[in-house]
């Protein structure tokens, strides 16, 4: 084998390298077994998601949470700080694999918060799995992600299957809707949710429509909803579409209840839909912020705004990894550490099942009241 190796060394490099040319090998960095504070390993954690580009909002909310967790950790461990390595995928599955490879090649990276979206997860997670690098996603909710047998996959929130039934239940039991209209945005997330809701509501669904992401004019959908006589509308999708949708619905004179899921749990929804957002019901498999007032206070102090969608999950995911580092784990041993993790985080009890799903998922309902998203109890 060695001889073929030498044979393959290109001429050009040999010439370039001149006398300095040697071979390198054997000194695998961070061989493990180092006991915590003895020698600082300069470990890093990775943040994998859209930090720039059109999908950057979500990524930045998560990153804010992660940074908060890092601040907490580095305050306690000033002698051996952990740094954050950003892998900015722009939410684009095309860019994801090469970024994943970059993270894998950086032996100092012991865990990844992300990938943030389901699409990029599918593109990047096989590589993370092969390399044994733990990923904890704070936001990718596609149900199937956990059934690929990726042993490094963990999800710090509920998947679409936990939220859909809860939303349907809420529409039936609390909103007491008898005629429900369901719209999705054709995204994996939105359609997945909406389909579950459609199934659970059965015959009380009086109409369906599918819109497209980045669509802004919903006049056809408005006509469909108003003419169906629906008293409630479930929208599976994200806030950029939810805001103009509800605004145009209200402008069109529709008076029913607007029910959405966590993709819309975002202050910008209210900022943009203004009055039209009032009364919107948001379901979310996330614990209301008032459950973790310290986190909310710290976040507000640092970023001058309330925690946003998935900031808490980002904080929790990073905290798990940082706890691992504090416990002296490296990339290889981190996997078991995360598997057996069981602590209370800011969003929920952080504990994973065999498939890497959060073990304890509760879905809460929120309501937009007076321009704020306020909790209105768990959906049971």
């Amino acid at each position, binding site marked *: *084998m060695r001889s*073929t*190796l030498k*044979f*393959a*060394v*290109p*001429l*050009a*490099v040999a010439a*370039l*390298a001149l006398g*300095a*040319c*040697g*071979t*390198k*090998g*054997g000194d*695998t960095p961070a061989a493990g077994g180092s006991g915590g504070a003895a020698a600082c390993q300069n470990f890093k954690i990775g943040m994998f998601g859209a*930090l*720039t*580009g059109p999908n*950057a909002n979500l990524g930045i909310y998560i990153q804010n949470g992660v940074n908060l967790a890092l601040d907490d950790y580095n305050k306690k461990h000033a002698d051996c700080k952990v740094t954050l390595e950003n892998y*900015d995928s722009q*939410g*684009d*599955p*095309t*860019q994801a*694999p*090469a*970024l*994943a*490879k*970059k993270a*894998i*090649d950086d032996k100092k990276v012991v865990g990844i918060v992300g990938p943030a979206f*389901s*699409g990029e997860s*599918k*593109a990047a997670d*096989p*590589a993370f799995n*092969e*390399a044994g690098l733990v990923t904890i996603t704070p936001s990718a909710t*596609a149900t*199937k992600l956990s059934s*690929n047998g990726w042993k490094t996959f963990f999800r710090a929130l509920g998947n679409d299957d936990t939220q859909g039934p809860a939303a349907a239940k809420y529409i039936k039991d609390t909103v007491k809707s008898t005629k429900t209209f369901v719209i999705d945005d*054709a*995204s*994996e997330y939105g*359609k*997945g949710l909406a389909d579950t809701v459609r199934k659970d509501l059965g015959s009380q669904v009086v109409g369906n429509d*599918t819109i*497209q992401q980045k669509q802004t004019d919903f006049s056809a959908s408005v006509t469909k909803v108003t003419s169906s006589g629906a008293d409630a509308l479930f929208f599976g999708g994200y806030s950029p579409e939810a805001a103009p949708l509800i605004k145009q619905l209200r402008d069109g004179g529709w008076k029913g209840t607007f029910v959405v899921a966590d993709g819309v749990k975002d202050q910008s929804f209210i900022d943009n839909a203004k009055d039209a957002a009032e009364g919107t019901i948001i379901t979310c498999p996330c614990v209301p912020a008032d459950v973790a007032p310290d986190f909310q206070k710290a976040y507000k102090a640092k970023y001058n705004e309330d925690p946003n969608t998935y900031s808490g999950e980002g904080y929790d995911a990073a905290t798990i990894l940082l706890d691992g580092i504090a416990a002296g784990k490296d990339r290889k041993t981190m996997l078991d550490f995360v598997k057996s993790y069981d602590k209370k985080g800011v969003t929920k009890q952080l504990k994973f099942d065999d498939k890497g799903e959060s073990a304890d998922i509760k879905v809460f309902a929120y309501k937009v009241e007076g321009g704020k998203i306020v909790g209105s109890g768990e959906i049971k």
Partner: protein
Amino acid sequence: MSTSTGTAASTKQRRLGFKERVNNLPRAVKILLWVVFAVFLFMLPLLNIPFITTEGSDFGGVLFTVATYVLVALGLNIVVGYAGLLDLGYVGFYAIGAYTVGVLSAEHAKLSWVVVVPIAIVVAMVSGVVLGAPTLRVRGDYLAIVTLGFGEIVRLTLVNSEWLGASRGISDIPKPPGVELFEVPSIDWSSGAPVVDLDTTSTFLKFGITDFVPYYWLALGVIALVLLFDILVKSSRVGRAWEATREDEDAAELMGVPTFRFKLLAFALGAAIGGLSGALFATKAGFINPQSFELLLSILFIAAVVVGGAGNRWGVIVGAIVVAYFPERFREFADFRVLVFGLALMLLAIFRPQGLLPPRRTVRAKRADARQAVLEEGEASA
């Protein structure tokens, strides 16, 4: 990018001189130079040359992306550069190639990669004919919007069709069969000088999940084949017919060129190459969803062709490299990447309106123009 503006004229002249000298070299030396260059390209992802290597993303992966852009640019160059048809929906064919691979090797059948890729090419080609047959009679700018619409229709169909996986996409696309012949080590520069790193190697040709270098090699091979094809076809009756059609469609028709047939041929070939690049992309990515085939990509493809110099195959290769590589290389601009890219396009349009490497004829025409200007000046002063 800015280096190519100010001193463009002077370097151009020097380069021509250099090229003439190279060409006067004995044939054996020329062949040797080509071999060395090919080996260099082949080794590029493993050399980790400082400054060239992308810091923010894996260089092998980036090079693969660059290679797919090169392939796409070569295909689109046939349509835009040779036949003069402005195609703003090229991403449609790219998507069709990728999805054919996805559907036939993962989603609905488990055909082998070797079978699926030719099918992908054929499907893309057929879709090119199906799109082209009714629309190629439409002229110039109308064609641009029709093709743009086609690209969107393809994407929307992918998003909204459950059979094609809708937004969730298609996962677990199998890798091509590989053989593991030998390992190629990489070069490590961390000590300041190049050291052969025997730990980080790429296996020839093992198509794995975490090593993109073999895919890059595969793409290089495909590019070489497509280039050869391009050269052979361009320097034939077919190439002349395309150019004549581009220059003056009516005149070409009246000189006996069945222009519609040749436009359709260009369109179909372009589509086939687009489909091939899509197929390669799907192979390497292992996962595809409609997000990878947005309209913006079509715009970038066109930019690659025009930036490099539509009509010159070497130019469009350079253009593709610029468009695909620079945003990755300058990741540190992060949020400003697109802004900087846009600025670069504008500057380029102003300072290199014929593209970075214009077709050789344009170069020659420019020289002739310059000479004429000198002559006219001489006359005026006399």
